[in-house]
């Protein structure tokens, strides 16, 4: 698993629950170290062990934890750079949804060994979409649930999301756009980089 993904999990746990609990998790997972390097690659099993230990530590289901991770990635100031990169996807929430098809390509353009599952957006009828996350990263759909929810807040849109389960390894998310301009949203200026 790419270090960026492991590092994202570490950042989420440290900034949300504190470094003590992160150390508990790495010890329970038997990592033998407590800091992931963003630009190195690790065995896939390590990530799985960490997530298992995290669910035990937090006494929560993996799906909830992963959804919170997705929300964290968009809304926490510590990872503002990522939120900005996602906002490059488009002017409106619907533009953003359509940009998800090319998200894995964009990710690879930035970090060429970062492989994310392919995604496909379908508009079922106006305001109603389904997002299919292809197999490759089990639970990725739950992370995307959190990202989609937090990005809706970012754009000021009101959406209803439902994880429609996995079909043959692919996860499907049902998206209902209730109101595009529901709230103010957060500002996004192209030319102002996150520190």
């Amino acid at each position, binding site marked *: 698993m790419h270090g960026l993904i492991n590092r994202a999990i570490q950042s989420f746990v440290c900034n949300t629950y504190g470094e003590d609990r992160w150390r508990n998790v790495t010890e329970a997972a038997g990592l033998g170290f407590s800091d992931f390097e963003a630009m190195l690659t690790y065995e896939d099993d390590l990530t799985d062990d960490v997530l298992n230990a995290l669910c035990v530590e937090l006494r929560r289901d993996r799906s909830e934890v992963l959804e919170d991770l997705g929300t964290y990635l968009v809304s926490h100031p510590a990872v503002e750079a990522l939120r900005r*990169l996602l906002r490059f996807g488009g002017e409106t929430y619907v533009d953003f949804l359509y940009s998800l098809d090319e998200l894995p390509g964009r990710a690879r353009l*930035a970090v060429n060994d970062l492989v994310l599952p392919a995604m496909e957006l379908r508009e079922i009828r106006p305001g109603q979409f389904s997002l299919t996350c292809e197999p490759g990263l089990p639970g990725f759909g739950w992370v995307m649930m959190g990202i989609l929810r937090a990005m809706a807040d970012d754009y000021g849109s009101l959406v209803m999301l439902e994880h429609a389960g996995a079909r043959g390894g692919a996860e499907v998310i049902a998206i209902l756009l209730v109101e595009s301009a529901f709230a103010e949203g957060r500002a996004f200026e192209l*030319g102002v*980089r996150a520190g």
Partner: protein
Amino acid sequence: MIQNDDLLRMLNLLCPMYMLLDESGVVTHVGPTMQKLRPDEVLEGQRFLDLFDLTRPRCVGAFTDLLAAKGGKLNLSFRTAPRTALKGLIVGMTGGAVVKLSFGISVVEAVRDYHLTSADFSSTDPAIELLYLAEANSVAMEASRQLNLRLQAAKISAEEQAFTDTLTGLKNRRAMEHVLARKAGGGMPYALMHIDLDFFKQVNDTLGHAAGDYVLQQVARVLVEETRREDTVARAGGDEFVIVFDHLTDRPRLQRIARRLIDRLEQPMRFHGQSCRISASIGIAISTEMPDCDPLELLNQADMALYAAKRGGRAGMRFYSRGMDVTEFPTDLAQSRARTG
């Protein structure tokens, strides 16, 4: 003069950063994004060549020269600040010309300087992707840079540990061998001083290892204080030390240093109320006295001088001289050396 509502609507969508010019090169219409670059200025009515400085084509006397530009390609920048560099494409038409402009590589600064949004670019314009890439790239580079910094720090600290004797902070045997290896064939004159502590074993045996460690640290301090910054002071083994003196081959001076070292090491050291007394024997070999001698051989000679000194009684010092190998280094001493070393 070009005036066609369909044309304008098309240009606004396809390339919002454009200008229409009349036959004499005066601006007659400005696209919405182009106007954002000069928000408080009326561009219509100004001469195109008064607004911009051209670097391609370079020799432009009249507006008609522009229309003759090969492939219509223009490189230009505003004459007033911010002097953003632009790329242009000019197409002559009946009644004037259309100039399509773009930022090229300066898009990153331009977006910041003019507060542009993605609505200011045509939806097929790769400008937003270019901005995304520039930003994603700098985020990724920063992560790599951080990794490199941490790896470099880890490497330096590993190297420092590997070349440092952790008890005394002096160079260790490995570091000393590195220093000596660099001297091979170098031609730079130097002297080697081999120091062996006397009575150190008694301190260790009667007062314990903590006292022994303390004594070694004090010895290290004395050796560093009595030598110059450029000299190499190494702990070569248990209670053996080696000093490499660069550019110092003068016997009387080396003798004075050796005497002073012995005098200072003989002063009692206090450890937890106990007095620890040691002394030292010193052997010295000088590179200029033994030309063509490699550093390890010279170290061996300093070693022999040291044992000659020991044989002459404790707290002595000797310079190596030819013949010492045979006369003053008999087998029984070689054996005793093997025991203490």
